[in-house]
């Protein structure tokens, strides 16, 4: 066994094991969080690179930096990567590292399932991106066979008739694999938050980040089965020749849109709610004031989660659903702006009268609010079907969701990076470079996406690889491209900051003088998180006298602490799943395909049994 607890006679407490194998077999939520963060950040850079190529191509009319085919692959992979391989797993990095610390737990409820989620995510992401190089294996004559039907993969663009190559197979299988990772993590975190809270940590004393993550997990476990079924239908259509999206057999291509957006709209909140949670931690800390209207912020988040399930068809106004469906979904979409607006007012009221400290985390949180408002306002605009019909499939929509997802979610995540960095690594990121990062990114993002409102309203359609010089779109596109390059420079500054800050002075347990439980323990926290599990008496345990006991925590554990050992079986199970995916990818060659899939199944089954019966005490 790679990890063993120290003998139970010592009071020093176990120490974290070292070496590569200890990372491969780790079940420590903090290490898994770091692995999620590193992997997702690399995918974020890849997705960003794809965006830069897209913007370079569109920087001038009639450009030919990439072909139309490659352009389709780039925007498809950019969307898919940013949603499933960057923003979701970056949120997962924070779920992993922060939630157990915020609720006063030693780990998540199922540490091995947690490792399994990470490995499936990593291998699924590599599987999806392998399509960029896999062309020769399929004899297609091109290097790249990356998915090329958009991140939403509308039927029947994805049908075997119109997409005969392996491109869509990579996408349909990759997303199913990634869904497994998200679902497993969802069950794990729901259980962790319900069941592993420290004594006195009532639900309404949980930090808002934990609350918003909790809502997010419910969205994940309910939304992902729906897209899974949509993907299974597509896979069966492609592999076996079933009729789900085959119009000639009576199939309805709108079925895909319903299943996809039934998932896809909750997915939007899966992306934004964790960032809202992060911002709700950062703003009070750097305003030196408790969050304004904690309960209302929590209830608004829950309401967003619930109503988020009833708005999906606003993505489908242009399909002609009829006046009743249009009206209902228009109303529910406008309704969801209410709890969202409530949150925004609460954040502003939190800063109101506070002693603001403009550290990088705070700047990103404020940037989040400003840009999220812009994205939210354009969202309300296309909640109205007549307006939406003008805006559908134009760059206006691109501007809208990038304000929400980059201006919102990504800014929120960067706020989280600066905020929790000292907790994770024991030293803070440099302030000056952080501020430079923020201002470059703030200008870059707005320069990229604000002109898209105009190019969109002027009629520039999405997903075209070039445009004519006489359409009046040249300046706006050039501005967007300049902004994208500036955003790239900003991210580079962040990378440099990570590198230069790696030997900073020790941050101490609570460098920001924050209020929540994760700041009560060391930075970085010991493998067992807390020397003793504190009893919580207040929403702000570190700010209010008597908010927790003991306070401060003892420096060494007074009693022996059991730390679960590592396990290699989560990784093996993930390898089994990915092997099955590779088998399914080869479906044009029956025997090797079946053989590979069966080997994968065997590896999976053996791993599950080894996992179930190995000695492992949490």
């Amino acid at each position, binding site marked *: 066994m790679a990890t063993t607890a120290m003998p139970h006679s010592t009071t020093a407490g176990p120490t974290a094991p070292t070496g590569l194998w200890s990372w491969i077999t780790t079940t420590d939520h903090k290490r898994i969080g770091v692995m999620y963060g590193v992997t997702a950040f690399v995918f974020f850079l890849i997705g960003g690179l794809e965006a830069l190529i897209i913007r370079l191509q569109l920087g001038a009319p009639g450009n030919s930096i990439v072909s139309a085919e490659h352009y389709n692959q780039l925007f498809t992979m950019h969307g898919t990567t940013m949603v499933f391989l960057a923003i979701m797993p970056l949120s997962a990095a924070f779920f992993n590292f922060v939630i157990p610390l915020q609720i006063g737990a030693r780990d998540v*409820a*199922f540490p091995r399932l947690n490792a399994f989620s990470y490995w499936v995510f990593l291998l699924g992401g590599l599987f999806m991106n392998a399509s960029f190089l896999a062309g020769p294996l399929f004899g297609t004559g091109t290097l790249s066979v990356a998915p090329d039907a958009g991140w939403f993969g509308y039927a029947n663009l994805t049908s075997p008739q119109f997409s005969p190559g392996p491109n869509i197979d990579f996408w349909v299988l990759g997303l199913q694999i990634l869904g497994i990772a998200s*679902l497993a993590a*969802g*069950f*794990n975190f*729901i*259980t*962790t938050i*319900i*069941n*592993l*809270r420290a004594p006195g*940590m009532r639900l309404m004393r949980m930090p808002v980040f934990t609350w918003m993550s909790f809502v997010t997990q419910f969205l994940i*476990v*309910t*939304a*992902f*089965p*729906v897209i*899974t*079924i*949509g993907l*299974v*239908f597509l896979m*069966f259509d492609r592999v*076996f*020749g*079933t*009729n*789900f999206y085959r119009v*000639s*057999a*009576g*199939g*309805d291509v709108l*079925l895909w849109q319903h*299943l996809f957006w*039934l998932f896809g709209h909750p997915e939007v909140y899966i992306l934004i709610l964790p960032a809202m949670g992060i911002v709700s931690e950062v703003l009070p800390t750097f305003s030196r004031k408790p969050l304004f209207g904690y309960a209302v912020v929590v209830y608004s988040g829950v309401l967003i989660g619930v109503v988020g399930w009833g708005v999906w068809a606003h993505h489908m106004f242009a399909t002609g659903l009829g006046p009743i469906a249009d009206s209902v979904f228009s109303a529910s979409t406008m309704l969801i702006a209410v709890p969202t607006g409530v949150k925004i007012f609460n954040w502003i009221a939190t800063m109101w009268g506070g002693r603001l400290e403009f550290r990088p985390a705070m700047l990103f949180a404020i940037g989040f609010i400003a840009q999220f408002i812009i994205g939210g306002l354009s969202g309300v605009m296309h909640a109205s079907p007549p307006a939406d019909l003008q805006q559908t499939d134009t760059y206006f929509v691109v501007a809208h969701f990038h304000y929400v997802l980059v201006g919102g979610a990504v800014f929120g995540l960067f706020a989280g990076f600066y905020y929790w960095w000292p907790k994770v690594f024991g030293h803070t990121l440099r302030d000056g470079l952080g501020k430079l990062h923020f201002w470059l990114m703030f200008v870059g993002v707005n320069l990229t996406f604000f002109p898209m409102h105009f190019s969109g309203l002027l009629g520039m359609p999405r997903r075209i690889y070039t445009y004519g010089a006489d359409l009046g779109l040249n300046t706006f596109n050039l501005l967007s491209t300049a902004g994208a390059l500036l955003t790239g420079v900003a991210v580079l500054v962040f990378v440099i900051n990570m590198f230069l800050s790696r030997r900073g002075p020790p941050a101490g347990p609570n460098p920001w003088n924050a209020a929540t439980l994760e700041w009560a323990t060391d930075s970085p926290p010991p493998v067992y998180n807390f020397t003793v599990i504190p009893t919580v008496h207040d929403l702000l345990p570190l700010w209010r006298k008597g908010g927790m006991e003991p306070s401060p925590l003892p420096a060494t554990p007074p009693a022996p602490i059991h730390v679960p050992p590592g396990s290699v079986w989560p990784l093996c199970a993930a390898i089994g799943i990915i092997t099955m995916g590779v088998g399914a990818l080869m479906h044009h060659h029956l025997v090797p395909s079946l053989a590979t899939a069966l080997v994968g199944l065997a590896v999976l089954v053996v791993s599950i*049994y080894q996992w179930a019966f190995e*000695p*492992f*005490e*949490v």
Partner: protein
Amino acid sequence: MSHAAVAHHTSTGLDSRKIAFWTFIGSECLLFGSLIATYLVYEGRSVSGPTTHEILNIPLTSISTFDLLMSSLAMVLALAAVQRGDKVWGRVWLGMTALLGAIFLGFQAYEFQHFVHEGLGFTTNLFGSSFFTLTGFHGAHVFVGVIWLLTLLVRSLQGKLGPEKALNVEIAGLYWHFVDVVWIVIFTVVYLIQTTPLPTT
């Protein structure tokens, strides 16, 4: 290692595995909900036959449905036996549950090959695709359940399924009953309530 025997302190007092499993079942509801909704949306939209009333055999499937319902009864008795530490009856009822599940799968295998023989394949028409996918997903769940029950039976025969491990049986039972309930819905909407109009020719 005696995990599970002494439950860790939890906020709710419930074992974490039970909570996780309930959330899993909630998630599965959406999975089957999507399959069933698709079946219902597509019912009667096949452009060629054979479809529901030409091919579905309600009496035969009633028998297999009864069989599956009885397996849930056996499951309840298995859990009760394991909880009171009754090794013999625990094994009998675990084995019986698995056997009744296997019989259900036998009915399904017979039904599938019979349909194929009658000219309804997976790709024949919209009904074939949605019917085989829906019932096939359910059958795969039953199959996993049978393997799970047999695993518990082997653990019992190894003497490793005492009352302190009853939660393992209880969770398998949750799964089994859920799969059974799903079948009741499928049997009702697919077999009993057929909305495909009768052919005019």
